[in-house]
């Protein structure tokens, strides 16, 4: 099958001069990608003290997200510097879904980088749903103790339809869906703070991935939820 390829590139390079001009206005980007096609997006959003990078590639998936960039110290009612949020899910059709993302967030002398991958065989689309979410808030001053905090969270939720159960299996078996996420953190000069983290951890098949098969049950009121989560704050 040949896919139509659409490439969308967004870039918002704001320096302190433009922020002075635009302040106190916030800069708001809304990102929506829909379609039975291969779509990729990459963007870097930053102000003087914080930045986030978003890179997504998806095939037969829908996604939406936004980025709000404030002046570095935030404004009344918006006590943060950058707020980015996004989600994606597989869409219908008879073609496989492939989704990957790579998110970076920098501030306070540290950079975190996280990736997510989803693959789903088309046979499972009617009985399984995968949803990816992430959110990063940089330069958050609403802690009440004068502290400035940065956070990033990411999750993948794989839920079966009522009447179907999921079970872990090998990626060599089909039809299945495979999901996984990674996380890295770096200090000044790019020094890693610890080894790369994986959710799920490495399995007996030699891969840090969760592959799920689906099984129908006689009980039409049961379903399963497989949730992968990563959270960080600094």
């Amino acid at each position, binding site marked *: 099958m040949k896919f139509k390829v659409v490439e969308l590139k967004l870039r918002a390079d704001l320096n302190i001069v433009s922020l002075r001009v635009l302040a106190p206005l916030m800069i708001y980007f809304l990102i929506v990608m829909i379609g039975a096609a291969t779509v990729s997006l990459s963007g870097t959003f930053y102000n003087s003290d914080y930045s986030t990078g978003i890179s997504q590639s998806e095939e037969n998936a829908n996604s939406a997200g936004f980025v709000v960039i404030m002046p570095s110290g935030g404004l009344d009612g918006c006590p943060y510097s950058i707020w980015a949020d996004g989600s994606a899910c597989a869409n219908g059709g008879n073609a496989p879904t492939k989704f990957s993302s790579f998110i970076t967030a920098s501030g306070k002398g*540290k950079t975190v980088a996280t990736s997510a991958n989803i693959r789903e065989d088309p046979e499972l689309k009617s009985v399984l749903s995968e949803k990816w979410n992430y959110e990063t808030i940089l330069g958050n001053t609403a802690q009440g103790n004068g502290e400035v905090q940065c956070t990033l969270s990411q999750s993948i939720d794989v839920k079966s339809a009522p009447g179907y159960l*999921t*079970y872990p299996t090998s990626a060599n078996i089909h039809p299945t869906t495979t999901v996984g996420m990674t996380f890295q953190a770096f200090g000044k000069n790019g020094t890693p703070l610890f080894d790369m983290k994986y959710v799920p951890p490495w399995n*007996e*098949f030699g891969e840090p991935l969760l592959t799920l098969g689906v099984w129908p049950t006689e*009980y039409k009121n049961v379903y399963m939820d497989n949730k992968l989560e990563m959270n960080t704050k600094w």
Partner: protein
Amino acid sequence: MMTRGRNAIEVLIAMLLVMTPAFAGGFVAYNHTFDHFIKLDDEYLKSKFYDMRIVSGTGPGSETNERFDANVITGLTNFRANLSDNNAYLAYTKGKYFIQAGQEGKIPINKSVTVNSYIIMTGKFDSIQNVDMHFSEENLTQANMIINLTYNGKTYQFEAPETKIDNESIFNLFLQPFCNEFEEIGLDATRSDYKETASSDGLDYSGSLTIEAFRNEV
């Protein structure tokens, strides 16, 4: 010549005995490929044995062993997979076996079998899965597969239907989880959690995987 052929077959049988007990927590998986060729004068025996996999269990006491016996003389072919795990919920076996016995210049005898079987439970069961395939010497098309599943001290027997495609016997046995024969679903048994935390230089990280089963009110 026949004696030599039998010797060759005995060697093959010895080599086909696959007995690999495994002790592991989490899932246990096998993926074997086995090719063998024996030739004595103008007689030969060729075998292939591949793509066999058992995935099962979450308990540290998981134990599986597999055994494949082929006896062309008696026409008996047995494949046996035993699974013993107090917290197991999935047994998956896929096997494909091919044997060719022949004499140069003559039409060889081929035997090819594919087996797929699944047993999925919500946990807390002991199972013994025996897959027995029997073939008559004269008529290689006659075969059956019987699976014995022992659960809570009771043994249930299932017979897998045979499908013939291009002279290949294919057996598929899919046991529905939560069969009526078995107990009610124990949702607590399906919960599985993984969590990891790390901290360095003022940065805190946590990662987790949660697998849960739910039941809606009807």
